[in-house]
C-alpha cells in the first residue's frame, strides 16, 4: 500500500539511546521489576557459567576444584587469606542469592500474568507481594549469609600458614 513519504531529516535515536531514555520512563514498579528480572537473570546466567566450569574440575582435578572454591572463603591461589576478598565474595554471594530469590518470585508473578486468566488484573497486588516476599526472605537470609564474617575463618589468626610451596598448597585448616 503506498504510504506517505516522510521528511528526510527525522531524528532517530540509536538503540542504546532509546534504552537510556527508557530508563527515565515513568513506568514505575512494573518497569523496575522487569529490569531487575532481566538483570538478575543475566547475572545468574553469568554465575551459572562460572559455576559449571568450576564444578567441571571435580571430575579430573580435585585439587583445582578445592583451590577454586577456596577463593569463596577469601583464600587466593597463592594460599594467602585476604579478608577483603572474603568480604567481597560474601557480598557477591548475597547478590547471587538475592538475584535468584527475586528472579524466582518475580518469575512466579510473570507466570501468573501469563497463565492465570485473571493474572494481569491483579498486577499491582502481585507486584507488591513480590516485593514483600523478596525483602522478607532477604531480611532473614542476609544475617545468615553474613554471619560467618564476624570472625576470621576457622583458623587462629595468629597461626596463619606461611606461604606454601608452589604448586600444592594446603589451605585446609585443622579441624
Amino acid at each position, binding site marked *: 500500500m503506498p504510504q506517505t513519504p516522510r521528511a528526510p531529516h527525522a531524528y532517530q535515536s540509536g538503540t542504546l539511546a532509546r534504552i537510556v531514555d527508557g530508563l527515565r520512563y515513568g513506568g514505575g514498579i512494573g518497569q523496575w521489576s522487569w529490569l531487575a528480572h532481566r538483570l538478575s537473570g*543475566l547475572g545468574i546466567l553469568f554465575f*551459572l557459567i562460572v559455576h559449571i566450569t568450576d564444578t*567441571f574440575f571435580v571430575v579430573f582435578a580435585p585439587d583445582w576444584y578445592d583451590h577454586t572454591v577456596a577463593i*569463596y572463603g577469601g583464600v587466593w591461589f597463592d594460599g594467602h587469606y585476604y579478608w577483603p576478598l*572474603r568480604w567481597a565474595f560474601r557480598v557477591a554471594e548475597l547478590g547471587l542469592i538475592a538475584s*535468584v530469590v527475586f528472579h524466582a518470585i518475580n518469575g512466579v508473578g510473570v*507466570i501468573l500474568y501469563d497463565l492465570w486468566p485473571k493474572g494481569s488484573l491483579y498486577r499491582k497486588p502481585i507486584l507488591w507481594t513480590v516485593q514483600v516476599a523478596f525483602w522478607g526472605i532477604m531480611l532473614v537470609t542476609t544475617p545468615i549469609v553474613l554471619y560467618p564474617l564476624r570472625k576470621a575463618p576457622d583458623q587462629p589468626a595468629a597461626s596463619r600458614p606461611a606461604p606454601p610451596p608452589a604448586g600444592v598448597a594446603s589451605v585446609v585448616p585443622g579441624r
Partner: protein
Amino acid sequence: MTARSTGRRIRPSGGYELFMWYFMRLSGLALVFLAVGHLFIMHILNNVETINYAFVASRWTAPRTGWIWRLWDASLISLAVIHGFNGLRQVLYEYLSAGGRIVAGTVTWALTAVFIGAGGYSILMFQPDEGFIKEHPLKIERTTEISSASAPPASQPISVAR
C-alpha cells in the same frame, strides 16, 4: 442464539517461540524449587567456605541418597542452562537485526549444548578420588562421624545433606 456462543476452538499454532515461551514458564516453575532449594542447602544450611571436593564427593556418592542429588543437580543444570541461554537469546533478539539474530541464536544454543554437556559430564561421570579425600577431608564440624551416619541421630543438624 448461535451454536458458537459457548466458544470456538482454533487449532493451536505451535511453533518455536510459543514452545520456548511455554518452556520458560514451566522450567521457571521447576527451577524455583531446584535452584532455590540448591541455594538453600548450599548457602543457608551450609556455608560455602566449607565446601570442598570431599563435600561434593560425599554428597554425590552417598550410598542411598547420592542418586537423588545427582538427579537434582543434573536437572537443575540442564533446565537452568536452557532457561538462562534462552533468556539471553530473547534479550539479544530484542536488540539485534535479522543477521545478528541468526548468530545469537546459534551461539546461545551451541553454548547451551556445551554447558549441559560439561555439567552433565561432571555430575554423571563423577568418580570420587578416595586418596585426595583422605588428604583433604570434609571441613564441616559434625556431631557424629560421617562413617557412622548410616542412621543419623535425630539431633544431628542436616549440615551435609546426603
